[in-house]
């Protein structure tokens, strides 16, 4: 029976590790919202000398892949320096979990984003932030590589769904080669907005369809 979730995912879903809050956390990151249907909060304790993550917990309002990814990513981050932890990707989580359904990248990547947000929060608090990069077409495209086209299981850039990108006066315009009433149009659009809207210099994200 082709279950969408691997045995490891199911195990982490049933018994998620590192669940809860750290009341005196050194940093906290929250990604998503009830409105988008998935939300992850990540709490960190970091050794101020070594920048090693000594404790990490997460909370999840989301589906199985979201919960399992929160569980595994906190396991992977624990004991790493924040520099190392920053480099953890969806692919790392997916590999550790024995695979994640591409159609659910949307939900699972949120846990990685939560970890990154917590690390950024730590860096900000501790003056470790480098200069803020402005949002360019190139940077947008890089971000869009984290949005998956569920039809083919590839990101929307590599699967040639992104027809055009424009950045002007804080407005990002993305044109997708997809009919507006396509089965996954709304989900992909939401994902794109989620990825770009939090940028410091972005006021509006417009997603357009070719049909």
């Amino acid at each position, binding site marked *: 029976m082709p279950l969408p979730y691997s045995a490891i995912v199911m195990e982490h879903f049933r018994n998620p590790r590192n669940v809860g809050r750290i009341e005196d956390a050194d940093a906290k990151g929250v990604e998503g919202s009830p409105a988008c249907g998935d939300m992850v909060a990540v709490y960190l304790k970091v050794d101020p000398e070594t920048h090693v993550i000594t404790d990490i917990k997460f*909370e999840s309002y989301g*589906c199985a892949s979201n919960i399992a990814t929160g569980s595994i990513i906190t396991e992977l981050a624990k004991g790493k320096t924040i520099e190392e932890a920053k480099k953890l990707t969806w692919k790392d989580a997916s590999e550790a979990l024995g695979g994640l359904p591409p159609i659910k990248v949307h939900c699972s990547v949120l846990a990685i984003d939560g970890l990154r947000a917590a690390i950024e929060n730590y860096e900000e608090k501790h003056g470790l932030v480098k200069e803020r990069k402005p949002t360019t077409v190139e940077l947008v495209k890089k971000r869009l590589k984290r949005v998956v086209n569920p039809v083919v299981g590839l990101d929307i850039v590599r699967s040639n769904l992104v027809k055009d990108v424009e950045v002007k006066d804080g407005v990002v315009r993305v044109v997708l080669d997809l009919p507006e009433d396509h089965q996954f149009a709304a*989900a992909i659009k939401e994902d794109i907005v989620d990825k770009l809207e939090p940028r410091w210099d972005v006021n509006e994200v417009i997603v357009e369809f070719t049909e």
Partner: protein
Amino acid sequence: MFETTVYLDNAASTRMDERVLEAMKPYFFDLYAVATSQFGYSLGIEARDALDTARAQIAGVLGANPEEFVFTSGSTESSNLAIKGVALALGEKKGRHIVISPIEDFPVLHSARALERQGFRVTRVRVDETGRVDLDHLRESITDETILVSVQAANQEIGTLQDVKAIAEICKEKGTLFHTDATHSFLRVPLDVREVPVDLITVSAHTIHGPKGIGGLYVRKGTPIRKWMDGGYQEFDLRPGVENIPGAVGFAKAVELITPEETARIQAMRDRLLERLLNEIPHTVLNGHPVHRLPQNANVSFRFIEGESLLLHLDMRGFAVSTGSACFSRSLEASHVILGIGGNHERAHGSVRFTFGRYNKEEDVDAVVEAVKEVVAELRRISPLGKE
């Protein structure tokens, strides 16, 4: 592999009754010919006879004449035929405007959208927070160019019943045709075309313990409608294709087996479930109407948690339910029904639908409640929400 013991998704599809298969069997192996024209060979005439008898039985429970009921492949096709068939017949002659509710099931919702792409105007009439259509707004929405109003008899997710009679009478008064998708209410909530001036009714077999792949459309005599699927001259020249006679016979048998007593039994189970969930689990809200609802449907939202996770945990415990969460749906979109009645995304994501059928047992209701209580508590423990 999990063992599902308690199936509570009877709105999606139902277990077929063994007696239905028994009724179908002769048409697989003995009377397998197509229903020929009446001048065909005996086997074909007997097949036609079986088809006509099935048709008369089903038409009968709607208070209709046999020639007012055509078989289709299911409710999706029935609603396509109703909406697009009327559009073909009247689009040029009368006008290019139709009215639907925003919480219709996909066949009606997306058929209307298809007409919009062809230049039709579609008005989505207002519904209240329980899903009931605003009758005044409906009345205002109908113009001289309105060729069809399509409002469901019962909602597929939240189970809300519309006042079909009032809607039908408004349509009649305004001189427009009225189609209702009765897929979920058929035989569980009475509807008689001699009392309600409805012109077109979508029904299906698979929601009443009949076979999949067969449904039908009631078409009141004289209704202007054109053939939408093209092909042969079957079904009064309204729906072509070799007739699915085993399906039709099975459908009729399924119709025969539904009784008011069974519906009452189902409603009692549903009532007990709903009462316990709402009373015993905090931050739980009912979706749909407290009174005007399908007897077999319960739909609630548990705050702070997401439906797919809940569904998966229940599945591991042997209970099959459905949710309006985006993560569960094929389109990854949250339920348009819950959003349509003014609910927010959180309410949609945390909504769970329990629908009962013939094979549910009274003693399972409490087991479901206990499992839901456990799982909701566990997921709320994990959730970042609802804790301040």
